[in-house]
Structure formats: structure tokens, C-alpha cells
């Protein structure tokens, strides 16, 4: 449990250091994710503790978005002035991107091994 969290937070820290050192615009946690994927890919089977910790954190990921999401109330003035372009663009652009990504996957994936979404 503790080791697993240390690995995750450690990868994040290394990711932050890489970002600072190379002046990248990609955030540290994303660099950390790729570094951990690389390390796990080379290392072989995934440790059971790390698997449990990852399952737990990913299962609660929604919770971790709440504090930043509540930040919307600090932008109330901007929202009141431009609610129409903001809401239409947010919904339309998100659905469009979702649809395009899904359709391109659908038409380029090899049919063998398709798994039905339930």
C-alpha cells in the first residue's frame, strides 16, 4: 500500500523534474504516467499492491476533479456575460470530438476481436 503510493508519487515527482528540466508544456503527472508505463513494461508483471492502489485511485478519480470543478463559481461574471457561446461550444464541440474519435476508431479497427459495449 505504502510502497505503491510512493511509486506513484515518486513518478509524479520525476515527471515534474523532467518537465522543469526540459521546459516542457506537458504536465508532470502525464510524463510520470508514461515513465511508469515504460518502467512497468520493461519490468514485467505488475505488483499486486500497485494494482490495488491503481484500481482504488482510478475508481475514485471523479472525486479528485470536484475541487477544481467548483472553481466555476469564481467565474460567475464571465459565465453570465457569455453563457450562450460557452454552453453551446462546450456541448457541441465535445460531442463532435467524441463522435469523430469513435467513428474513426470504428472504421479503422480490425473487425476481429471486437468486443461489444454493454
Amino acid at each position, binding site marked *: 500500500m505504502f510502497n505503491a503510493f510512493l511509486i506513484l508519487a515518486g513518478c509524479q515527482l520525476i515527471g515534474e523534474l523532467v518537465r522543469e528540466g526540459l521546459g516542457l508544456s506537458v504536465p508532470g503527472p502525464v510524463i510520470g504516467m508514461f515513465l511508469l508505463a515504460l518502467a512497468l513494461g520493461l519490468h514485467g508483471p505488475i505488483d499486486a499492491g500497485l494494482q490495488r492502489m491503481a484500481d482504488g*485511485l482510478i475508481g475514485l478519480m471523479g472525486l479528485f476533479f470536484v475541487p477544481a470543478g467548483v472553481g466555476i463559481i469564481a467565474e460567475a461574471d464571465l459565465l453570465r456575460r457569455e453563457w450562450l457561446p460557452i454552453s453551446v461550444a462546450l456541448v457541441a464541440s465535445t460531442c463532435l470530438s467524441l463522435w469523430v474519435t469513435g467513428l474513426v476508431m470504428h472504421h479503422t479497427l480490425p473487425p476481429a476481436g471486437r468486443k461489444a459495449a454493454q
Partner: protein
Amino acid sequence: MINALQHLWAPLASTPLLWLVVTMAAFFCGRAVQAACKGSPIANPVLVAILLVAALLIATGTPYGRYFSGAQFIHFLLGPATVALAVPLVKNRGYLRRNLRSIGLALLAGSLTSIVSGVLIVKALGGTSEVALSMAPKAVTTPIAMAVSQQIGGVPALTAALAILGGVVAAITGQTLLRRFAVEDWRAHGLAAGVAGSGVASAQVAARNELGAAFAAVGIGLNGLLTALVAPLLAAML
């Protein structure tokens, strides 16, 4: 009675613990609502929690800064959780390797669609360029979206909210929308959720299918990289 409540509230409201517990309780309520709606994506727990907490802050006149000083401990866990996405990524690397061409094409198409359509729709409806630029990186995971928004001249706080609400939109519409176009494959659902709705939409898919979770993780990671690279270029052109 009200006086007594205020006596209790005033010292509590300035401690981090109160807002930590409020945030978790709100998310717990969100989950309970979703369970009561038989897992319906419309009852998104993140959205329910945000609405509950926002209503409480407005009702009690608590500034967002004071709330965040407590809730930041939850916010902090986004980092390790993002790193943890490496685990489903690695477990399903065989599938990913076999579908590399599809992933590359779909990522490029979906990512560019999101940035370009977001900016153009805001401008077409008379929004300011400040809002248009805040909209550009909204599909990527919140920390990346905020960094990109800052870089291209948007409002990072607005982008953070858009990134999460966009994720809520993708989580709510994703499965229905894609199935209407006969897209049933979890790999397509997962990647689309990751590219168009980052973490929130991925959470919706990940709770249902592990292969979908792996493709969602790839979508989040690669779209974050791609958007960080191309959004500044596109923003200068549009």
C-alpha cells in the same frame, strides 16, 4: 438556534477538514444518486458533487479560495491518480500495439476537431477571444488544459471548469451517441472518452470495462501531449 449554528459554523468554516469532508460527502451523495438511477450516465456523480458544493459555498458566502485551501488535499490526488493510469495502459499494451494505426488516426482527428470546433463555435456565437482560447484545450485532462490555456491567453480557471464540465457532457452522451452510429466496440468507446472527455468521461467507461479503461488512458495521455503541442499553433491561426 441560528445563532448557535453560526457559532459552530464560523470556526469550522476556516479549517481544511470541513471542506475535505464536505467534498467527499457530496461525491458520496453523487454516487448514491447514480446508483439510485441504475448507473445512468446522466446522474454523473462529479456533476452532482460540484452542484452540491457550489450551492453550499454560495449559501454560506464562502469564497472559493477558502474552500480550496481545504479541498486541495483531494485535488492533490489527481496527480498520483493520473500516474496510476499507467497500470491499465501496461496491462493492455498488446491490444494497444495491435491497434496503433487506428489510435493514431482517431486521436489526431478527434483532438483537432475538439480544438478547432471549440474556438470557432465560441467566435461564431459572438464570444470573446478570451473565452474562445479558454475553450480550445477543454478536452484534455484538467492540469494540462489549465497550463495550455495560460500559455495561449485563455482564463485557466474557466478552462478547468470547462474541462470538467466537458468531461461530464462526454460521460453523459458518450455511450448513447456512439451506439446510435453503431459503434459498439469498447476500444472505440474508451479512446473517444479519453480524447473528448478526459478523466471524467474515462471514469464512466473505466467503471464498466477494463479494455475501455486502457484505451481511455491512452486517449487522455496522448491527447494531452498532442494538445500541448498543437493548441498554441492553432490558437495563433484561428
